[in-house]
Every structure is written in C-alpha cells, then in structure tokens.
C-alpha cells in the first residue's frame, strides 16, 4: 500500500470524526438544544399567531425560567396533519375551533379552550383609493385565504352576509380574486409585493405602531374596516395534545395563556378587540 492510499485513509478517518462531532451537536428530539434542567415545551401555532406567540414565548420564559418554550408555526392544515400522524408536541393553538374539535373527536387532543378572538379587515397599501369596505368588490386584484383555511372560511362567511345586503356582491368579489392562499400571511404578502391590491386578513395581521415590528418603508399597509353587520368573529382555541410529553407543563401554559399577562400581550397585538373604526 503506497503513501497515496495511506493519506486517503487518514482523510477518511478525519472525516468520520467530524461526522461524529456533527451528529453530537445536532442531537435528537425537540429538547435537543434545551439546556439541562429546563423543560422543553413544544407549541404548534397557526400562522396568524406567529408574531404574538414570539412575544408570549419570551414573556412566559421570563416568569418561568425552567421552561423552554419552542414555537413552530405553519398553516393549520399542515399542523393538523402532523398531529394526526402522532407528532409528539405539547400544545396546539388554532384559529379554527372546528379543526380542534375534529382532532378531539379522533382522540388526538383534549377539549379545546377558547383564548382569543379576532376579526377580519381588508388590508391595502397606503396609496390605495379604497376607504369603504362596501366598494371592495371593485378592487381589481383580491387575495383571500383558501376555502380549507380558517381565514378563508371566515372570509366567505363575511361575503355571504355582504351578499344578503348587496345582491351580486359575492360574485363580483370572487371574480376579482387572483389568489387563494393556504396561509393568511401569504395573502398579506401578496399585497405587500404588489401582486394583489387588497387582501382579506385578520385585524392582527396588519402591522400597527407599537405592535412589535417596524413597518418596512416600501410596503406600508393600512386596514379598511369591515362593517360590524358583516363581521364574523374568529374564535381562537387552544388544546393540549394527548401525546404531550410535558402534559403538566402544557396544562400550566394553557392556563397562563388565558390569564391576565398573556391576554394583555394578545390585546396589544390586536386580538380580543373589535375594530370600531379605521386606525
């Protein structure tokens, strides 16, 4: 065996050692990077809760330093799929009580408990001429949520109410819909990117001053209020998973979510209030 082959063997063993180190740093399980002594708590949340959940996460960890809250957000359908495949998460927070009921009936979660409400608004760019929701069916390009997504279903309920008052409204509106997104935030992004002129989203999705993130200068949005008589209330609910590895911690977190501190955070992000007038 020449020195050539010997060098190669050295390189191979070095690579193998790096591999082992790499594996060690990655580890397995949600608690992988959790410092010893802290309990990991895996919360699955709908996309519309993303910003609020980030603040809730740090608020909870401040008062409960022994718990490491980990938040994974995705579309409700994705989350439901993961849970019904036996994913070992602790808590599921969804914008759709129907999803949670279905999961409860099939035995994946405990009974769902409401913790916040949300309302819909029409999000437009700052320079849009739209001021009145009753004119939205004339906006050229509209973005809404897909029918299977919570915000999509709420949107259609609002459309039904509008149509009862203004015949033909729904047909005109749907004719201008250019995209039905699987995720409410993506519908909003379409307006930001200029691909759509208006989107029906949650009140909490439209950034407000002091809500936690600075608006990007090129894409300032504002919300056009939907008349109270058309409005639907989106009920957010939370449930503990049957397979939760941290059942006790999960129950404690759910209880906290429905208590004063968390509710104040949620209100600050726009939940739990009806939008009476345009901001």
């Amino acid at each position, binding site marked *: *065996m*020449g020195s*050539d*082959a010997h060098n*190669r063997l050295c390189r191979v063993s070095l*690579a*193998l050692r*790096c*591999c082992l180190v*790499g*594996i060690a*740093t*990655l*580890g*397995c*399980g*949600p608690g*992988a*990077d959790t410092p010893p002594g802290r309990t990991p708590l*895996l919360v*699955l949340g709908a*996309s519309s809760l*993303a*910003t609020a959940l980030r603040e809730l996460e740090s608020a909870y960890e401040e008062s409960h330093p022994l718990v490491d809250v*980990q*938040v*994974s*957000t*995705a579309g409700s359908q*994705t989350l439901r*799929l*993961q849970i019904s*495949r*036996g*994913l*070992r*998460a602790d808590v599921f927070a969804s914008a759709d009580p129907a999803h949670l009921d279905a999961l409860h009936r099939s035995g994946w979660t405990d009974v769902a408990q409401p913790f916040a409400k949300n309302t819909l608004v029409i999000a437009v760019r700052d320079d849009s001429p739209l001021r009145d929701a009753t004119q939205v069916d004339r906006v050229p390009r509209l973005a809404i949520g897909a029918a299977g997504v919570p915000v999509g279903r709420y949107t259609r309920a609002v459309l039904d109410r509008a149509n009862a008052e203004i015949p033909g409204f729904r047909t005109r509106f749907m004719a201008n819909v250019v995209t039905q997104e699987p*995720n409410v*935030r*993506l519908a*909003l*992004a379409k307006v*930001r*990117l200029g691909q759509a002129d208006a989107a029906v989203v949650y009140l909490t999705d439209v950034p407000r001053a002091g809500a936690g*993130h600075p608006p*990007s200068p*090129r*894409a300032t949005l504002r919300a056009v209020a939907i008349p109270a008589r058309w409005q639907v209330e989106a009920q957010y609910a939370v449930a503990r998973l049957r*397979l939760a590895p941290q059942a006790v911690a999960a129950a404690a977190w759910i209880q906290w979510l429905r208590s004063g501190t968390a509710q104040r955070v949620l209100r600050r992000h726009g939940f739990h209030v009806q939008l009476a007038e345009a901001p």
Partner: protein
Amino acid sequence: MRTRPRPIGSWLLASPLLVALALPIVALALASGPDELLSALGHPRLAEAVALSARTTALSLLVIVGCGTPLAWRVARGGWRGVALVETLVALPVVLPPAVIGIALLDAFGRQGPLGGVLGDSLAFSPAAVVVAQIVVASPFYLQSAIAAFRDVDDDLLLVARSLGATARSAVWRVALPSALPALIGGATLAWARALGEFGATLLFAGNLPGRTQTLPLAIYAALEEDVSLARALALILAGFAVGAVLFVRLLPDLRRIWPGRAS
C-alpha cells in the same frame, strides 16, 4: 468573401428559456436596495438560519457521500439480485413531491411507524430530522451521478491496477475513485444544493422552529409573512449559494488543470 450565416433560428428558440432562467435571479438582485439588504443582513434570524442550513447540509452531504459512494459502486458493478430494485429506489425521491416525502417520514418515524419503537418517536421536529429529510431528497442527485461515473470506469483499468499489485479495494481507491472524481464532485455539489433548498419535507417532518429546524428556505417563507425585505435578503443569499455551487461544478475541469502537481 462570404461571411458565415448566423444561427438565428436556434437563438430565437432558445431565448425565451434563457430569459426565464435568468429573470428571477436578476429581478431578485435588483429588487432590494443596498440599505435594505444591509439592515436585513444584521437580522438574528438570518444568522440562525444560515448556521443551521450550513450545519445540516454539511452533515447530510457527509452521509450521502460516505454511504452513497460504496452503494453507487456496488450498483455500478452489478451482478447481484435486486440491482434494478435499488436503482428504482434511488430514483424515487426525485419523482415524489417533497410533501409526500414529509408525510412518509412522519409515518415512518412516528409511534405507529416501523422505527417508532427504536427511536422513541423523538426524531420528528429535531435538527436530526432536518438532516434525514435532506438526505432522502438529495441523495438521488449524488447517487445517479456516481453510478454513471463508476459505470464509465474501464474494467481493464482495474485489471491493470490489480496486475500491478493492488488489491481489489486498493484498485477502487487508487484508480476507480480518482477517475470518477469530477463526476462525483459534480454530483455531490448538486446534492448539496438540493439539500440546501429543501422545504416541503423539512416543514412537515422537522417543523418550523427558529434556531433548531428553521433552515434558510423555511426562514424565507416565514419572513415572507412578516418582513418582505428580510425575505428578499435571505432569498438572495440562498440564490448566491446555489449560483456558487453551479459555477463550481461548471468550472471544475478548468480548476483541475491548474491544480499543482497533477496533470490532466
């Protein structure tokens, strides 16, 4: 003197495709202002996502090359039962939608799955799950390249090596691998790029946990929901890596020529 006629026809046909390929990258680069880019570059999420993507893809690549090279060799040599089956398996992840692969991984490693008992279903939603998803979707790109390259190795070359005193294994190391090396490197680069861009299976199987499983593509998707300029910056970075990888593969023959000590 008559000048040569220009091949207008083929260029006319080719141009739409060229435009379609170039447009996204160019538009991406032009859409962000430099100040937006700079502020986005300092975002903590970016560093987290890049670091996670770097670690996971490096590990995936190591496994793909380490386990895939011997497998490709065995498949290329052939002569055993089930070669055709393995070749089909290798091609499968390319044709399956990533979401399907994600669901399949959830099933495989969940409690009810075949490996549920072994790993105690703690694999999902972990950084290791990211690596597994990347390995599954990216290994075909390396394997198919390696199998083709190994098939191209002349049997006579190996026989000569052995006649000169090399054992069968030594002949593979000293002759087959070096002669297949350019194709192996090219395949590995493509596999790495595919692993880097992996989204659907990762989202389903590893979840969207910032700092733990939120790789660069997932971070782009998440950023799109909140801060478009951050999404653009991340997208530009990812595109930069991809362009770099493709350029590297393309320039590889030229690089080998100027490599000191080795003659082509």
